[in-house]
């Protein structure tokens, strides 16, 4: 039996919060460094890793590459990270840099290689790890949404 199409009805006056208004007129995209609260600290941590010298881990680790730093900053400034907890930021021996989150039983590592290429590794505790090459922001966003349990 066919069902009637149900359409929502809504009425109302709406406006965004006053403090959001000025940015909505502007074209140049910026992201507040104050939200999420951990963003400034994470940026400072990335800046500190920029100064690492060769052999920083005493196993011949390479300095973190400029391309890796740039790509990581691009990711943080363009992804929706408002609901994410503070990430653990760590250098990788091959000149890359990684972010790690654990939310409940889900683990996510985002690794930016020295070349600027991005990989994600999703692991359910007790389950398999799923590595993926990340080519677009929306692919990276899906990984973040996964660790938060949104998908």
């Amino acid at each position: 039996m066919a069902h009637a199409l149900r359409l929502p009805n809504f009425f109302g006056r709406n406006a965004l919060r006053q403090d959001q208004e000025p940015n909505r007129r502007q074209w140049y995209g910026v992201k507040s460094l104050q939200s999420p609260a951990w963003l400034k600290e994470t940026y400072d941590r990335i800046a500190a890793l920029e100064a690492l010298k060769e052999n920083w881990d005493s196993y011949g680790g390479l300095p973190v590459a400029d391309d890796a730093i740039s790509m990581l900053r691009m990711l943080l400034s363009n992804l929706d990270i408002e609901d994410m907890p503070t990430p653990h930021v760590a250098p990788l021996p091959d000149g890359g840099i990684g972010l790690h989150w654990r939310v409940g039983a889900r683990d996510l590592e985002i690794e930016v290689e020295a070349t600027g290429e991005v990989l994600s590794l999703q692991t359910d505790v007790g389950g398999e790890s799923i590595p993926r090459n990340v080519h677009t922001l929306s692919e990276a966003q899906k990984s973040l949404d996964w660790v938060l349990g949104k998908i």
Partner: protein
Amino acid sequence: MPERTLPDYDNPPAQETWMAFAFAPLPWRVPHFGAFWSEIKGDYPAFEVHPPIGEFNLEFNAVAPEAIVNLPVRCWFKNDQSNRLIQVQNNRFFHNWRRPNPTAPYLHYDELKPVFEREWGRFCEFANRYDLGAPNVLSCEVAYINHLDRNVGWDNFSDLSHIFPSVGSFEGKNFLAKPETISANASYVMPSNEGRLQVVIQPAIRRQDGKEIIQLSITGSCRPASSDTNELMRCLDSCRGWVVRGFDDLTSPEMHKIWRKK
């Protein structure tokens, strides 16, 4: 070359500027966006749809005897070089200019104002031709968005006094150390209550390159005495004068050197 009596800089940190009018709502409906775009498409071939600025009414009732649909939007129309933008909604008209990249040359107000005047003229002529009436302008606005890159004259988000000598440290008397970041929002009244200057200082990241910046937004807005073009242009000049003088007054001589004040 027009004579410039306001403070002027060879290399100002302005990344974006806009001029805008807010007016009493026109009976502007969805088809008007398309009709207007078809007239300006040669200059602005790309578009985006955004939620409107300010307060708006949402109405959607598909089962009423006469269906009601009122979903207000704001349309962006962008040029080929992606450095000029027209924003239209039923009660606002904007023209934005931005640097295509942070190091591209700056376009001066003297060059942008005639462009705005021309586009506003096109909009009014369209409104007239489609029997929407002449816009009754309630407010004129000029804004400058400045990006102060970290490590160019400053490096500490918790000490803005190097850029803005009048901004305090926000350090507590005994308990609180220096803040991690500071943002600020100030407004100033223009003489005779003609309008206001709003200053917003915000620590931010530029999405284009992920770099840390202080975004300094300065917006002048005032109410015109009429919707006559000469009066509207006078108001824009007045707003812009406040923006430029405000910028110069709030920022430090050290930063003026970096921006090569003339």
